[in-house]
């Protein structure tokens, strides 16, 4: 049920690069949010250094997850809510599906949640004959088009207004228009009916609060408020790490989340939900279920070098800065999480060998670390993943990706440590490369595994004499003078 296409990274990336619509959209997205977020950090009264404080808060939560989750579930159960601990995707999906079937749910409305993408919830519901309506406008467009999101925060960024106009005129029976306001109005009307008739609401969770026992949901459209208020059953999903100890931790975390996600000072709506509709209250779900998901996260937790990744609050800020994401788009990453966050978290969740291209594709430029509201050192972990691919790793069950390369570098390291060997290699290659040097004195066509060097650029042949030899010669001449 879960769609993982990380093996197609190269093909999808090439597709993305050759798609002019996507290129334009990505450039506009990064220009707007990337720069906006950087400026929003600078304008913080505490300065960009606040991100370090946020990192400490998140890390402390991750290191005390056991207590925090116990407290959260105890609080929610005391209000009559249900808490289910799902060790993997299947368990989480099964629990939600059984809950839906118990209540004879025919239509569920859903707020955007990456973790439900991770576990493949929609496909499971479709297979069981239950309609799940995505209600975030971007997700709704993608669902109508039968596609998958390409950005954590702006899922439909790869679609133009005329494509959306065509889609809506066909699926919603409205006259063709390209006006975003009219299109939004049409979606508002169609989804309003769904909100009012749905039997179940499904949401994610941004950052739960252990102290008070609430989950929180954040949106700008108000769709998540609708999904969690109107239907009689609410099922919320959270990755087990999405929690903090104290209520007051949210001060820093929400301010940074809003800035990271959309360069806002504060998101449009933040809701605290701690259980079903209490006595005396007229409106709210009769039943509240919280599904806490592991699905590979304890393995990340157990490795101190990757533990930091669990601080992530899935805001998408790193996507808006990443030069690689900015060219290839989200679909190449082949799973729920794209961009730099996907390049680290996806290999850890689905297998490092299986998703190797994701971490090999990034540039290590460090832009993602500067953009991260909780100051996660993504480049460090990208390098770590690469070293595991180069050497193999038993703990993560990684097999060495390229033995030939390993041997070659072994030989190389022996050569560069010996002057005579290095010189011999230089003169050998000088002679050898003569055969590949073209008319204009450039090498543009190397054979076999060396092809990569000249595939997209020409290479200059080595100089006739090495620098060190030239230096020595000129030194002699200087002395003669």
């Amino acid at each position, binding site marked *: 049920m879960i769609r993982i296409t990380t093996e197609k990274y190269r093909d999808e990336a090439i597709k993305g690069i050759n798609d002019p619509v996507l290129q334009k959209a990505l450039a506009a997205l990064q220009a707007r949010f990337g720069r906006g977020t950087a400026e929003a950090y600078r304008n913080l009264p505490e300065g960009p250094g606040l991100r370090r404080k946020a990192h400490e808060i998140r890390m402390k939560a991750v290191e005390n997850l056991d207590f925090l989750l116990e407290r959260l579930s105890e609080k929610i159960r005391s209000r009559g809510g249900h808490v*289910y601990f799902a060790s993997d995707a299947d368990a989480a999906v099964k629990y939600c599906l059984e809950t839906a079937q118990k209540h004879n749910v025919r239509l569920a409305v859903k707020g955007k949640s990456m973790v439900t993408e991770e576990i493949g919830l929609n496909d499971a519901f479709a297979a069981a004959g239950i309609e799940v309506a995505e209600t975030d406008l971007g997700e709704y467009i993608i669902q109508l088009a039968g596609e998958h999101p390409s950005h954590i925060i702006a899922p439909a960024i790869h679609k133009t207004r005329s494509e959306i106009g065509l889609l809506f005129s066909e699926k919603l029976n409205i006259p063709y228009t390209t006006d975003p306001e009219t299109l939004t109005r049409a979606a*508002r009307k169609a989804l309003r009916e769904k909100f009012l008739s749905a039997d179940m609401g499904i949401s994610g969770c941004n950052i739960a609060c252990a102290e008070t026992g609430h989950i929180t949901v954040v949106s700008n459209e108000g769709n998540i408020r609708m999904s969690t208020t109107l239907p009689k059953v609410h099922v919320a999903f959270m990755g087990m790490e999405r929690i903090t*100890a104290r209520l*007051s931790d949210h001060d820093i975390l929400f301010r940074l989340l809003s800035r990271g996600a959309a360069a806002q000072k504060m998101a449009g709506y933040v809701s605290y939900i701690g259980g079903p509709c209490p006595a005396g209250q*007229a409106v709210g779900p009769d039943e509240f279920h919280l599904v806490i998901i592991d699905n590979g996260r304890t393995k990340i937790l157990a490795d101190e070098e990757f533990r930091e990744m669990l601080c992530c609050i899935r805001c998408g800020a790193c996507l808006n800065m990443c030069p690689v994401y900015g060219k290839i788009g989200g679909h190449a990453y082949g799973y729920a999480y794209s961009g730099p966050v996907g390049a680290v978290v996806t290999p850890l969740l689905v297998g490092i060998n299986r998703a190797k291209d994701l971490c090999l594709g990034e540039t290590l430029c460090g832009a993602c670390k500067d953009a991260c509201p909780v100051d996660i050192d993504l480049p460090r972990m990208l390098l770590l993943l690469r070293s595991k691919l180069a050497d193999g790793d038993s703990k993560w069950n990684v097999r060495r990706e390229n033995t030939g390369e390993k041997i070659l570098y072994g030989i190389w390291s022996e050569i560069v440590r010996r002057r005579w060997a290095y010189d011999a290699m230089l003169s050998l290659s000088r002679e050898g490369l003569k055969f590949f040097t073209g008319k204009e004195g450039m090498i543009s066509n190397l054979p076999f595994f060396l092809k990569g060097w000249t595939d997209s650029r020409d290479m200059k042949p080595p100089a006739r004499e090495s620098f060190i030899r030239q230096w020595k010669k000129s030194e002699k001449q200087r002395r003669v003078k």
Partner: protein
Amino acid sequence: MNDNGQTKFINNIRKALCVDGKRACPDLFCRQSDEESIEESVLILDRISNRQHSSRLQLLEIMIDAAKPVNLNVIPVKTLPDAAQEIVKLACEKQPEWGDEKSVALWKHPLIEEMNIGEILRKRNIGMIFSNQTDAGKTERERFIKESAVSFIGITSADYCIAETGTLVLKTAPGNERIVSLLPSIHVAVIKLEQVIADFKELYTLLDKDLKDSPEGIENGMTFITGPSKTADIEATMVHGAHGPREVYIYVVTGSLFPG
């Protein structure tokens, strides 16, 4: 015992953290452990409670500025009856989004009752739906949702309002239903100037205090609202009124000392 997988799940986490299952729970929730932050909260609470009328008015100015970029209307009024007049004027000007009939949904809240807006609305033939405080039955509840869904204006108060961002903080409570600020096309909030605070730091300090003084305070949940519902999902073009209210008005009752 069926604990929905909790024991095994938590044990796995403990194993991953390499901690002994019997370790004592660290001071994760206890505020007493952090003297510096206690001192800071005392200072902040003092600052809020001793705030002069003039600096509250300054906060209001800051809020009016913060409201502009998020398309939020912050309108100072001198008295509650003034607020009522303004709201009725708004109700007469605006047209309903769904259907032809004009109706308004209201919180059952002391400030709104004091405003006495019902009589004026009735005179103008505008219907009213009140959040029902009594334990609502199933049919009652469905009726309330249905009627709120066609209301074109929802009137609430708020617990706090944050000047820095123009954020309304609404604790859910009987009579203060969350759909009144959600389903109607226009959300109107009426607050007193004393409820305006500077920033989120002040908010969370106050909430911490509320947590200690009246633990039931946010038990039923809480909502922050910053401006009208919005989306930029079609070619990153900003459109207001995606699913929630398309317009939001905050009327701030300043008392007679407001110079304007």
